[in-house]
């Protein structure tokens, strides 16, 4: 039976299809409604912001490692930022704020949700596109002006927002306290716009996953990446409007003189923190759940073995998605919130460690008795497990409220969040980009340079962030411009220098990735349909897949991780391959 899907008008069976894609260049690559193009657009945008966030981090590290010394080539900065190359304290605060904002909202979140949510969901569930392709396009083209608004803040008088990425009121809303007015307003507007983009994206994902799964793609046959993106989309959908509402109130406080967060007429500074973290803690899981899901896919692929405990992995994702709403107060243990409330938040925080631990053990279980292939995505995915473990374990110190009294607001927190966000999310992103790159661009990335990039990143990354734990244990506060102002911090300044030098090397290492990414796009070896011998539906179509993805609607017969199945000679078994009746179509779990 001949089928037409999307714009693919003619089909010849036997593998090669003939395209009659009549769309213009602009419709095809710029204002495209194709989820794959939108995913790639998000990829380019968020990698640019990742680079910019990294640049800001380098300036921060220069100042911390070598306080008040002229930065090499820093003289090109204007005197409102760094006269004579010496970073000013107000610029330092902007750097810290914008590094966080760029990385959280414009790099990691779009990389995970915007890029892989878009690219993987329809392909992996066997759908031709998203449920609402035009809304999907709008989601990207709303994110772009948000990015420009955020960048514009650097060019306005008074400098960019400087109250931290958490923008605690009242510092953030009073120009007389921060010296920043326009920058903070742009920050607010940009995030409101970006929030709209995220909400449009997420309700699209949810609808798509619920309604557009290929026949046979039961809920418990969904790959874990899709499960995690599904729960993430729900978190984005419900958390982003809270942030938007809070930021709108902050913006009104600044511009039209309302009194939500300023104490002068009864407003409450802590209210901002409650609202921000009520969004912010689900946000933390938004930033890690898709990473966990994609790492699960890649680890099962690399280990050539079914994922260990698929059901408990799904339950852990759901558990995190639910418990994640009840732990926001652990960001506020020192805020003056009622200590009894603090105890409750501590208990809920302790409990959320359980699903995370289950996932780590299951990843180990997946590798156990496997036949592990050390391809570049697998290297990154294993580093993800290792680094996420450190980030998870260091979280327990902070969840224990008495210990948190000491380490709250110190570099211990900085170390923890970077172990989760860089060691966790970013390693998983590297794994995912290198894994799905052949599908996205139809070419392979260089495995040699991939390995070089991986090992150097792994080493320098740990040299940068591991010693930060020790700084924090020494009492080193975060967001301080010049640690040598404190006598008790003078002895640890050499650690700061080590971290800074390692950070410069870490940044330089990322250029290897950038070059590999760009060069492979044009010069890489042509990618076959299924270079990693994976089971997912996306690997059953050409690389890159045509518009409309599947020539015929795939029929799904089994769970996504049937590696090394005894029913076939190969060590993989795609979800849509039909086996003779004799072989069971779905292996039992557990």
């Amino acid at each position, binding site marked *: 039976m001949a089928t037409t899907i999307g714009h693919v008008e003619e089909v010849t069976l036997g593998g090669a299809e003939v395209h009659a894609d009549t769309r213009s260049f602009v419709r095809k690559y710029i204002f495209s409604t194709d989820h794959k193009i939108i995913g790639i657009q998000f990829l380019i945008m968020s990698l640019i912001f990742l680079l910019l966030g990294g640049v800001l981090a380098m300036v921060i590290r220069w100042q911390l490692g070598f306080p008040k010394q002229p930065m090499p*080539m820093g003289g090109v900065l204007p005197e*409102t*930022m760094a006269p004579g190359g010496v970073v000013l304290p107000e610029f330092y605060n902007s750097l810290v704020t914008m590094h966080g904002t760029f990385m959280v909202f414009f790099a990691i979140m779009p990389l995970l949700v915007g890029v892989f949510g878009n690219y993987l969901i329809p392909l992996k569930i066997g759908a031709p596109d998203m449920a609402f392709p035009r809304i999907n396009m709008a989601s990207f083209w709303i994110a772009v002006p948000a990015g420009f608004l955020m960048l514009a803040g*650097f*060019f306005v*008088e008074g*400098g960019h927002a400087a109250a931290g990425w958490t923008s605690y009121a009242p510092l953030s809303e009073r120009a007389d306290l921060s010296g920043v007015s326009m920058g903070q307003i742009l920050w607010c507007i940009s995030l409101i716009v970006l929030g709209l983009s995220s909400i449009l994206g997420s309700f699209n994902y949810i609808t798509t996953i619920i309604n557009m799964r290929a026949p046979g793609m039961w809920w418990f046959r969904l790959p874990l990446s899709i499960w995690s993106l599904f729960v993430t989309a729900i978190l984005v959908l419900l958390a982003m409007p809270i942030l938007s509402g809070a930021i709108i109130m902050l913006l009104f406080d600044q511009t039209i003189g309302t009194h939500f967060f300023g104490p002068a007429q009864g407003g409450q500074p802590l209210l901002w923190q409650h609202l921000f973290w009520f969004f912010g803690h689900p946000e933390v899981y938004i930033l890690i759940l898709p990473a966990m899901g994609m790492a699960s896919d890649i680890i099962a692929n690399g280990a050539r073995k079914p994922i260990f405990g698929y059901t408990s992995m799904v339950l852990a994702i759901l558990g995190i998605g639910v418990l994640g709403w009840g732990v926001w107060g652990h960001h506020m243990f020192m805020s003056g919130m009622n200590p009894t409330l603090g105890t409750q938040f501590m208990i809920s925080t302790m409990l959320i460690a359980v699903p995370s631990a289950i996932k780590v053990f299951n990843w180990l279980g997946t590798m156990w008795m496997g036949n592990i292939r050390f391809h570049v995505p697998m290297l990154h995915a294993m580093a993800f497990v290792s680094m996420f473990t450190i980030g998870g374990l260091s979280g327990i110190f902070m969840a224990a409220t008495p210990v948190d009294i000491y380490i709250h607001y110190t570099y211990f927190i900085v170390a923890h969040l970077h172990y989760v966000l860089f060691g966790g999310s970013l390693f998983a992103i590297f794994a995912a980009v290198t894994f799905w790159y052949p599908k996205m661009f139809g070419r392979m990335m260089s495995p040699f340079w991939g390995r070089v990039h991986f090992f150097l990143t792994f080493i320098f990354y740990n040299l940068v962030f591991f010693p930060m734990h020790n700084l924090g244990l020494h009492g080193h506060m975060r967001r301080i*411009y010049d640690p040598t102002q404190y006598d008790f911090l003078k002895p640890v300044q050499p650690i700061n220098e080590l971290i800074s030098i390692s950070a*410069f090397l870490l940044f330089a290492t990322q250029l290897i990735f950038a070059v590999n990414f760009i060069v492979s796009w044009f010069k890489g070896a042509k990618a076959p349909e299924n270079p990693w011998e994976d089971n997912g539906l996306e690997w059953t179509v050409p690389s890159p897949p045509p518009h409309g993805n599947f020539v015929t609607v795939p029929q799904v017969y089994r769970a996504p991780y049937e590696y090394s199945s005894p029913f076939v000679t190969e060590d993989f078994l795609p979800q849509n391959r039909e086996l003779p009746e004799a072989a069971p179509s779905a292996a039992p779990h557990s």
Partner: protein
Amino acid sequence: MRQVLIGGMLLTVAACGGGEKAGSDTATAAGAAPAAGAAPTAMAGGSVTGHVKFDGTPPANPTIDMSEEAACKGKYTGPALDPVVMVSNGMLGNVVLYVKTGLPAGQTYPVPSEPVVIDQRGCLYHPRALAIMAGQKLEIKNSDPVLHNIKALPKKNRPFNISQPTEGMTTTRTFTTPEDDVPVECNVHGWMHSNIVVLPHPFFAVSGEDGSFTIKGLPAGTYEIEAHHAKLGTKTMSVTVPADGAATADFTFAATGT
């Protein structure tokens, strides 16, 4: 490798910086606009000179506890005093004197090219009171090896809050609109205060330690001169300046203030 990466990052940030600098230049140009509107009159040769005296026992100036700022404390042999009322030999310093009325309406005057300097030395502002013409450059200097921030909270001009973390830093700012009193403060050292009068014309002076002052460049005419002290209040006096001659105006403040 490291230089390459730093270069890259600086290039990016430089792009941002360029824009900001252009912005502040524009602000300066706008500030000079009233002066450039009509053809500015060349400075005339008349002047007002005089002294500001202080009658009675001056009130004791508050002692400042600089013990947590060793670098500043070291600049004083005795206890550091905040010169709220600076009197020596019966003469009062830090009084801002300026032409209040008498200048022809609509007349504009060239903006002095010399900047007005405010120096942060020994964790105090020098001078503690100053006058500046709208559009004239205010040069802010840090002569201390510690962080100072300069927060100006004008009502009619753009507020600013900038920092100077290192010794020897200078930063330039301008005010665009005349304003009676712009308070200036440092938040790192809560005792540091100064007040700036922003004027539409260049006919102003600040009395020195000996209480003397000279307002130069006035055309012949009768003017009302106002003497303003942040603590002791305001006094006015009418003087007639002959062409290319000097008029005298002596003010006397007393302990009771206004």
